[in-house]
């Protein structure tokens, strides 16, 4: 089966993932993307999501908190702000973060005028990150 090289790098953890894979499923700002070997050149921005990596019959998950993805026919390079394998993720922290972010988003949505102090973009990004982290970990979202 044809393979494509996947490299994931972050600013403070170096190369988090490097392997020949069969398929990558991730989410860009335009929606879900599946990358197979020999894909056309592509440059796009990723949103926080749980990436699915298919390799050698199995499937692993990797959390990315947004960043950029460059695809060439032989190689996928992901420049992520942060990337974590399921083992790196702290469930409790992710759960707490999810609750906090969800609370903020719901209070804001209930009455946007009264809650102008809430940075809704930030809260929503935090919610998306926490959701993706829990998804990678396989924890049901509360």
């Amino acid at each position, binding site marked *: 089966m044809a393979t494509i090289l996947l*490299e994931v*790098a*972050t*600013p*403070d*953890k*170096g*190369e988090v993932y490097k392997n020949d894979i069969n398929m990558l499923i991730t989410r*860009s*700002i*335009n929606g879900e993307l599946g990358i197979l070997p020999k894909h*056309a*050149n*592509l*440059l*796009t*921005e990723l949103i926080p999501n749980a990436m699915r990596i298919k390799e050698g019959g199995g499937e692993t998950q990797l959390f990315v908190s947004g960043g*950029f993805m*460059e695809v*060439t026919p032989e190689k996928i*390079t992901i*420049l992520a702000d942060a990337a974590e394998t399921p083992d790196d993720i702290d469930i409790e922290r992710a759960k707490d973060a999810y609750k906090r972010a969800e609370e903020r988003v719901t209070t804001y949505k209930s009455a946007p005028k009264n809650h102008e102090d809430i940075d809704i973009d930030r809260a929503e990004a935090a919610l998306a990150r926490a959701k993706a982290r829990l998804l990678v970990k396989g924890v049901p979202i509360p």
Partner: protein
Amino acid sequence: MANLQHIRRRIKSVKNIQKITNAMDMIARSRFNAAREALLSNLPYVAKTKEIMRRVMGQMRGQEYEHPFLKTRADLIAEQQEGAGKFLFIVIASDKGLAGSFSSNVFKAAHDTIEYDGTSENSSLDDDDDENFHRKNFDALKGIKPSGKRTPKQQRQMSATGGIARTTSHQGGATSSTNISVTREYNDADYIDGIELITVGRKATTHFRQRGYNIIKSYHGISERPQYKYAKEISDLVMDRFASGEIIDVTLIYNQFKSAISCAPDEVTLLPIVTDDYAKASANLKEEYIYEPDAVTLLDKFLPRRIATRIYGAMLHSAASELSSRMNAMSNATDNAQELVGRLNLFYNKVRQAGITNEINEIVGGANALE
């Protein structure tokens, strides 16, 4: 005749200094390990960003996407001929001294770059380094005839040489001569006005403030442990100034970490991004990229990230270099102190021996006199 007590005191003070330098060496050593770790973890990210940048810029040439940060050299020259703009330099040094030639090396490189006026003998135009445009941009301007108004670069050349002596030589007699003096006068108001500085590290701030430079922002207390948010702050500020048109060139000067015993100053032009140089690096790349959502939106996000990454990377390089320099300086100082103590001990014993011999002589002399 040296006094025994004086020598003893001197030995003691040297030993005390040795203790201090030894402690500083160990502190630097442990911090250095952390700094090197941080740098090594950051390197792949920076390298990959650069790689992508190269590929994207390489294929971007020819099909001009309008983006304010991207310019071809021809654009740049055309722009220089009409408008005045300032130059911005970011200098990264340390907060504390006692790190050998760490700071002075950066300052020397910074002065060389800031005061560069295109008169250097060996032209850098053929240089393939696609991250260092500053001097190339200058060199490219050499052959340009001024159109009435003086260009900022030429203005800088003038004031940098304190006159027009050198300017006329390669501007084909732009202005008739009045004052021919080749001494550089950096306190010249015109010259200083054309330059803005952002400094990281107390040493850099004091150095350039003393020389009358206009420092628009300085960061202290972060040089040993850089954080991304400061790099982000600097890059936002820089991009703001650039977008407003006040700044036409942003160059970053820092110490690049090579190994635990060597580092060398490096300079990087952050803005504008000159596409010509990238084209050279990847001339054979023909395929087009798909941009999602579209090229301009994507570049709007990618370029700021690239600039912040570059600054952060430079800060990490500088931190590792600073600590390794301090480590070396302090271990040298400790060794020197050890040697000095040895020599002083020898001297002390000689003096002591001389004193004893003297006393014996006196006793023998006295006894002889009694007989």
